[in-house]
């Protein structure tokens, strides 16, 4: 009851809240569409800004009386810049990506403005800004030409070949509804694409794409010609071993369709063209765009500076003062090769070489600050970045070994010892327990016992190390398995696909019938590793070698 009451309260609060900020829902109307969404975003930036400053001022009101609203504007701009969610004009593309960007932009412009058909595949590792380049260009084009193209987004991880067809149909339907809204033609019946069997749907799609042109001709306006842009994420999953019907038909459309069609795929596979079947490959334009990485440290430092310093907007505002100050500060810090910021960037370059990692670590840094001086301090010392990377390592196997309790540690050592002794590098609970009890016994033998002659009455001063019973140690054994120090011999681990899981679950695994004590395990950490990790002051350190 109390919970539901609370919920009610929350709801009420929510109501009130939204009444006080009525601007939020004002604009969107029937917004179901990509470009509308973008517009909406940009319009609602202002509202959100207000809202956030309200929240922030509310939070800080008890600490500092005067909250610098310009600083908060600046901070939000900076956070948006780091998250790359600023509107198009204020988005900065890394300078090492300029050429790639131009190429993407050229293809999209040719197909949207000049109504040509194109196809291209972008190849680059994860987080190499493939999608964000495409999205950025599409955002730009939607500013002036939003009624001239339709974007269909597909993701190979989410869509199978069948659902992709359905998804195309659905997205086309929605987008065409949007385009036809103002024309008020009775075209709604012909738009009903997404019902029927798969082949029917696909036929309808093809027909529709052909028909759009004739339909538009009634108006006689040439600008109404609509081109269709397909954005295929993970295009390699559609280039599977079986038939590749979808890709074949789409690439075929590029060649033959009356409607201008542009297909841009992204993939992480360098040899994507080898994935394509011959008939698909011959229809593909062979245009593969490789997304570059920063070449050297200088490039990387420049890119890091770009991730940190937002563009100064033309509409001069008071936050610009902060922006300028901030960008100058970043410039100075990055030029100084001994500044903590530069060192962090350098370390990132030597290890991850990833702007995304860098940006992730910047978020806590920026959002934790409540005024500009604090922010300047934070970026000068870079403590938050260091803390972030320290935190990332707190769950590594070495870190976990250091947090193990005495019993867990000695069992781990005992298991590692038995592995080293055994011929097939496997162990089981029985053998490990024997090894464990041997370790404890010989440790205890060295301790001069204060109360010999089994005076059971007063063992309160017993300084021997406790030998836990076999039953109790089973618990610890399972804990070690949970941390993946021990893995069952022959265990498959995580399966690649849901289908593999389905097949595997239909077969009895042999190990499931073996009694607990006798199951064989392999270890993911060796005795030698343990010797490096276990502290030398630990009582079990001498046992980390045979």
């Amino acid at each position: 009851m109390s919970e539901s009451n609370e919920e009610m309260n929350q709801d009420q609060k929510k109501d009130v809240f939204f009444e006080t900020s009525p601007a939020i829902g004002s604009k969107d109307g029937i917004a179901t569409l990509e470009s509308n969404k973008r517009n909406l975003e940009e319009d609602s930036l202002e509202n959100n800004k207000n809202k956030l400053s309200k929240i922030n001022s509310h939070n800080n009101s008890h600490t500092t009386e005067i909250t610098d609203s310009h600083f908060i504007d600046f901070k939000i701009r900076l956070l948006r810049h780091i998250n790359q969610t600023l509107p198009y004009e204020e988005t900065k593309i890394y300078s090492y990506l300029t050429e790639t960007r131009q190429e993407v932009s050229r293809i999209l412009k040719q197909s949207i403005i000049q109504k040509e058909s194109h196809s291209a595949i972008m190849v680059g590792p994860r987080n190499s800004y493939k999608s964000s380049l495409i999205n950025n260009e599409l955002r730009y084009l939607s500013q002036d030409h939003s009624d001239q193209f339709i974007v269909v987004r597909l993701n190979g991880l989410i869509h199978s070949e069948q659902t992709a067809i359905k998804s195309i149909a659905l997205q086309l339907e929605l987008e065409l509804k949007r385009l036809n809204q103002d024309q008020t033609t009775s075209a709604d019946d012909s738009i009903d694409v997404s019902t029927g069997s798969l082949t029917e749907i696909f036929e309808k799609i093809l027909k529709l794409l052909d028909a759009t042109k004739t339909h538009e001709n009634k108006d006689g306006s040439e600008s109404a010609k609509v081109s269709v842009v397909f954005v295929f994420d993970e295009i390699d999953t559609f280039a599977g071993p079986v038939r590749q019907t979808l890709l074949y038909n789409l690439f075929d459309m590029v060649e033959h369709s009356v409607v201008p069609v542009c297909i841009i795929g992204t993939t992480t596979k360098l040899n994507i063209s080898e994935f394509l079947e011959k008939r698909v490959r011959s229809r593909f334009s062979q245009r593969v765009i490789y997304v570059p990485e920063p070449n050297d440290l200088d490039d990387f430092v420049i890119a890091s500076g770009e991730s940190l310093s937002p563009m100064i907007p033309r509409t001069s505002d008071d936050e610009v003062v902060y922006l300028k100050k901030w960008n100058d500060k970043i410039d100075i810090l990055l030029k100084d090769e001994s500044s903590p910021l530069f060192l962090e960037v350098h370390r990132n370059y030597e290890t991850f070489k990833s702007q995304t990692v860098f940006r992730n670590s910047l978020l806590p840094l920026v959002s934790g600050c409540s005024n500009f001086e604090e922010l300047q301090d934070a970026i000068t010392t870079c403590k938050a970045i260091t803390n972030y990377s320290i935190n990332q390592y707190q769950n590594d196997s070495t870190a976990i070994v250091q947090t193990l309790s005495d019993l867990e540690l000695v069992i781990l050592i005992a298991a590692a010892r038995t592995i080293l002794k055994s011929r097939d590098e496997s162990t089981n609970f029985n053998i490990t327990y024997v090894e464990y009890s041997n370790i404890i016994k010989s440790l205890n033998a060295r301790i001069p016992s204060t109360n010999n002659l089994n005076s059971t009455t007063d063992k309160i001063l017993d300084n021997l190390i406790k030998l836990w019973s076999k039953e109790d140690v089973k618990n610890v054994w399972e804990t070690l398995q949970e941390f993946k120090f021990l893995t069952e011999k022959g265990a498959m681990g995580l399966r690649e696909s849901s289908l593999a899981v389905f097949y595997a679950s239909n077969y009895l695994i042999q190990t499931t019938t073996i009694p607990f004590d006798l199951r064989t395990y392999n270890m993911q950490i060796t005795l030698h590793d343990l010797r490096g990790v276990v502290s030398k002051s630990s009582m079990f350190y001498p046992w980390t070698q045979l």
Partner: protein
Amino acid sequence: MSTLFREYQETSLKSFISNDHTLTPPNVILLGPSGTGKTTTLNSILSASSNDIVHATIRPSELVTWKSLIQATSRVIQQTLILKFPQIGAPPALDPLQVEDYFGLVKDLNIVMSHYSAVCSTVHIVFDGFDLLQDIDASLLLVFLKLHEQISTGHLKCVFVIRDSYFVHRYSNFVIPTVVFPRYTQQQLLKILCISRSRDLSSQYNNSNTSGVEVIENFIQLILQSFYSYTGSNISAINDIIDLKWPQYIAFLDNETLKDSATLYRRARHLFTFVDEPLNKDDGEDQSANNGVEHELSKIARYILIAAYFCSYTNPRYDPSLFSRKAGIKSGRASYGRRKQLEENPTHRQAATFSLERLLAIFQAIYPLDDSDNGNDAKKGRGSLEQLLQEPYIRPNIEVFQTIAELYSLKWLATSTMSVNVDLLSAKVRWRVNVAWEIILEIASSVDFDIQQYFSDIAI
């Protein structure tokens, strides 16, 4: 209200979770072993009144397959939004059970979120224990990582709470912002437990005396010192032990011991030496439950198991000397010579395989004869050659085979091949016993068979 020792995690999580979708990345991972305060910290941030975050929580551990996971996702988001914004009116009814694939989920989410777009642009989905989904596979997380790209109206943010760091390492090239929750140390645990438990412990112990807090802190410290090595820093395990021990502990509290904690400890010492978890109680009443397994077995079955154990764990070379009655004539070691002392106890290893023939032979040798027959033999005269010839061994009759089949279906005996359609009587089939040493000891003692002497010179 902040979670103890989780200040860093809390502040950095705040920078990854926000009501304004433009300020945060689309996905975030909370990584840490169980009992490290992940859910507590996350909930304290999500439910904080200052930031109105719309969130839906899904517990994959309650679901089994990916299909039920996506159905639950669709259902939970719909419900959350309906409850949260009753003023908007229910969205078009969508049957979550019709979500058959990822695209179905995308479709539903698009419809639902566009319906609510006027009031709520950002929805957080929390997967509490994503890796605990039973049928987890590697591609599932990828789907949810990319889900936000497919939502055309509104914004979807996924928060994954994950225990297994190896699972996360698998996706490290996606560079998802991660907040790691390390295990608590013993000192941290002490503080946390003192704060979190003192109230409800003192409510159980209603003594008017003032030093209640001290007693409780003392008790928690004792529990930690005794059982920290057993539980590790798993806070829920320690809480369980505290719940188990506290009623017993306060029984020792009186006016004398209240002041003298050393005496109190001495009296209640046995509480801190044994875990006494309900599963392995050694009380008298539980004794029967412990022995329940072998009481259900017939005498023949027990001997078959013992014989099978011999087959798996003794070298066939020594069979004649161990089980032949002739060996008894030449008594002692002289009959078979010294058996090699093995480096390790063979019973600690997995069972070796054997053929059914050998099992039957050993079974015949160890199965005791009926008393009445023994009496007759005694009359005939001991030691005579006739007696040897006429010894009424048990024959492998229908009962024996039935029992073997029964043991096989109970999985006490297993064959080396796992296929279901195996011809159990085929000579090619190899068998193995599937019972641990402790259990076979119990079984042997229940029929007064001294199995230890057979292993005395090879086991340590």
